[in-house]
């Protein structure tokens, strides 16, 4: 019934997004199989190894507790480079502005972008601005692309998970999605939750000395931890077993999710990473994270239990076991 139309769910980062990529975009554009997809492309240009990535930001509202669309656009692209183990070097930025957008708001956004770039140690070196007629855009859309230097020979990617690996997250999950949702017009929830939007390249730099024990790095943005782990399980052909008890979740996030019938495992993050690390170095990885300001609440949340056809299962907090699938479309609040 909806074969011909792009739906909002196609942008959710979940299964519909994957279908769109696998069935329409990739076959017609690059032919690079989905199994080889990661947060950034790896390039070898004249012997120099680079990571290259791009992302667009269409968040609503554009200002939310803990950040705005500008720092999000910088941190998101910095993080996509960092998840390949690359050192982010420089970014481009493209603005699509709607006629009537306030210059004062653009100034706030641009200032946050510069501050975020400074914090991440990257330069914004090129850009573009377009203005569309009123009603043809939604105030502001931002695209950022980034280039990073790959200064090691490690193969950190989604297909590298091995049986025995521990799954580590650097802190509480779901903060960004719930902060944005709480700030949305019409939803009068004062959750006190701030977005976790942050550059993760510093934390990744601390983890890189783990060397070949560091198998996968991935930031669980749209689709949340569940969708990201399912992607990794499929790419690597393994079963990941999560422990619900060990998932770090802020009480405010838990509360809002409970009220709206949302599952924190599927809520977006913007300053979190999942690291899959060989078991013998997992404690060390956890200690490294916990010493870092962006990893003080880091926790081992699961492990790779067997080679299989890409399953994620979870031992629930009360000792039951259930499957974990990708986000199917948009996460929609339940009816009662």
């Amino acid at each position, binding site marked *: 019934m909806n074969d011909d139309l792009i739906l909002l769910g196609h942008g959710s980062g979940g299964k519909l997004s994957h*279908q769109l990529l696998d069935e329409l975009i990739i076959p017609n554009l690059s032919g690079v199989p989905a199994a080889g997809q990661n947060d950034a492309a790896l390039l070898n240009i004249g012997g120099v190894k680079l990571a290259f990535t791009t992302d667009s930001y269409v968040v609503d509202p554009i200002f939310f507790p803990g950040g705005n669309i500008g720092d999000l656009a910088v941190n998101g692209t910095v993080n996509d480079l960092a998840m390949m183990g690359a050192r982010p070097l420089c970014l481009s930025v493209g603005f699509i502005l709607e006629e009537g957008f306030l210059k004062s708001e653009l100034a706030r956004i641009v200032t946050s972008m510069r501050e975020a770039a400074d914090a991440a140690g990257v330069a914004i070196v090129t850009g573009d601005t377009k203005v569309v007629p009123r009603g043809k855009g939604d105030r502001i859309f931002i695209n950022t692309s980034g280039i990073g230097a790959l200064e090691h020979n490690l193969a950190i990617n989604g297909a590298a998970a091995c049986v025995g690996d521990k799954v580590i997250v650097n802190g509480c999950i779901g903060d960004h999605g719930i902060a944005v949702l709480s700030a949305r017009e019409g939803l009068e929830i004062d959750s006190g939750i701030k977005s976790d939007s942050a550059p993760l390249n510093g934390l990744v730099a601390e983890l890189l000395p783990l060397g070949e024990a560091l198998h996968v790095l991935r930031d669980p943005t749209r689709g949340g931890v569940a969708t990201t782990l399912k992607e990794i399980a499929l790419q690597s052909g393994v079963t990941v077993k999560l422990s619900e008890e060990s998932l770090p979740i802020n009480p405010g996030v838990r509360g809002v999710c*409970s009220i709206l*019938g949302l599952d924190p495992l599927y809520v977006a993050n913007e300053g979190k990473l999942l690291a899959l690390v060989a078991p013998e170095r997992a404690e060390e990885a956890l200690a490294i994270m916990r010493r870092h300001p962006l990893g003080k609440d880091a926790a081992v949340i699961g492990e790779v239990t067997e080679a299989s056809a890409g399953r994620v299962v979870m031992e629930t*907090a*009360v000792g039951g076991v259930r499957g974990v*699938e990708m986000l199917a479309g948009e996460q929609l609040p339940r009816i*009662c």
Partner: protein
Amino acid sequence: MNYLDSFRDKELVQGLARRIAELVRGREKPLVFMEVCGTHTMAIYQYGLRSLLPPEVKLISGPGCPVCVTPNGYLDRAIALSRLPDVIITTFGDMLRVPGSTSSLMVERAKGADIRVVYSPLDAVRIAAANPAKRVVFLGVGFETTAPTVAGSILAAKAQGLSNYFVLASHKTMPQPMAILSADPDLSVDGYICPAHVSAIIGADAYRFLCTEYQVPCVVTGFEPTDVMQGVEMLARQALQGESRVEIQYSRVVSREGNAKAQGVLAEVFTPFDAPWRGIGVLPGSGLRIADAYSEFDAELAIPVQVEELKEHQGCLCGEILKGKVAPGDCPLFGGKCTPESPVGACMVSSEGTCAAAFKYGR
């Protein structure tokens, strides 16, 4: 430990599981308990509670997801309304993906219809007040839990003198389908896990006739894992002792009489009628339509619209699944033609649908 954590305590849950296992040990025919509330279905899957129960206890899901039991014709009318140029459809999120005969609200939104997800019917009233040149229709779907707030929105719109707020009502009430299921010779239910929020409104005594007429044990149960497990234990004890009475496990919220104020609002704004249930058919007195005194707010009467011809989805077993007669995996469409991102039947649509829960958590 906070208040909620104590209801999710692992030791308590596993202790209850051991007690249930001891109670039913050696029983040849499993005890079959039905939960009739979608939120219970979700809780059972989400916490993996089935995996903690012994094989002598089987939990099956009934017709308790309000989205799932909403018939195609209702969706078709909502879709037709959404195509009118001066109409804003306001709805809870679950309804967006539900397929009608040939379309869904999500598809209509992608085609340009003004369809807005709200979190409360009062938000829809606010949208009506802010858009006097538009007609704002709220999709009133749900059981006795949500119906009072929808009734309240009509009273609020009336108090504000709004003439552009309407409700397309398809509310259902719970005890009647349980009576139908109890009388079904093909279905052998040994006890009901009665809904929590619905019971907070209608009171536990509303199920008493099920015990007297059909001799089925009933336990009104909360949504936390300890609640559900304790509810199962209470049902097992009744069933094994050959008793059938209404017990309240969820006594921190539910009383025998229910919420008189909410019942009063319901009686004021709605009238019972013979409602169609998707996959089940028309059940006498099982729905709530807008009372004549408030007909100016009834979208069905106030906004005439051409509705497309009804088409039922071939091969979909939603009806049998809603009656607890087949499991999601038994449906030939499950996981193939019917998935959460492309649902054929309503059970796969709502986050509380049996098939959606089985697809998401059960595989």
